[in-house]
């Protein structure tokens, strides 16, 4: 049974719980931010599923990284951008458990951290945040 819809859904819902979120482009969603809008983009980068234990009916180990990229406003202070980095990392802090009881799936956050920022092709400074998760999913 594939569960990427549920995993991605839980991670997106968790991010959506933050108040006053800036403009946010989900996967395959086109957005048109103004030049003075800080905005976010998200993408699920799932790792290859594993079956680390013996037995035909054991759960599948699903892991991966939910990437949240923060696009800063050109010329505005770095502090404003890192406020959002801090909020997002805190929202996904280590040990956070996301559950969808109707689908019987639990996603656990292993860790969340920003990586070094860079200037993208559109001139925006971008700070990607890696949110590493894992889940045991029934076969």
């Amino acid at each position: 049974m594939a569960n990427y819809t549920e995993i991605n859904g839980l991670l997106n819902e968790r991010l959506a719980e933050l108040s006053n979120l800036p403009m946010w482009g989900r996967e395959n969603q086109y957005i048109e931010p103004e030049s003075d809008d800080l905005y976010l983009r998200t993408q699920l980068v799932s790792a290859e599923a594993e079956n680390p234990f013996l037995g035909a009916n054991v759960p599948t180990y699903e892991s991966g990284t939910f990437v949240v990229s923060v696009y800063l406003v050109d010329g505005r202070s770095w502090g404003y951008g890192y406020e959002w980095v801090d909020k997002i990392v805190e929202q996904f802090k280590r040990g956070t458990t996301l559950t969808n009881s109707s689908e019987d799936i639990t996603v656990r956050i292993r860790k969340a951290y920003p990586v070094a920022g860079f200037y993208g092709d559109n001139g925006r400074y971008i700070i990607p945040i890696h949110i590493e998760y894992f889940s045991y999913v029934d076969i």
Partner: protein
Amino acid sequence: MSKEFLNKIRQFRHKIERRTTEVYRKSCADVSYRIADKTPVSKGTLLGSWSPSTPSRSRYNFEGGPSAWKKGIKDESIASANRARAMNDLGPRIEAVTASLIKENPYYFTNSVSYARQAEYEGWNKTGPYYMVLRSKQEWYAIVNRFAKEVGARG
């Protein structure tokens, strides 16, 4: 303690160290090739500029071939030739550096091309991000497990 017993302990220690080093070398080479495989190629500059090194970081500037993009369309035969040329340069460097690795030293696989992060996290209009490092990193434990089993199975 008898001399024979001490010799056996010493041999065991050497065997473990030799095998650990072998797993480390093979795993580092494998993850480097995985990153290279996922690296997008037009001219091959990005691919050929990956720099394997130890014990400190290094830079390598590779000059790619002609662009594979012509009027918004990618010519895969040009890209393929540029990929082969870049890998002919990169492959021997990966082999040479990983063959000399010792487990006490870190292994670096770096890229100083200005659009490396653009390729990793953003991509371009027609491509999307490649996540060449992130996706390979996610495969790291599986790579190490595979080589540990392979080396350990020799008995």
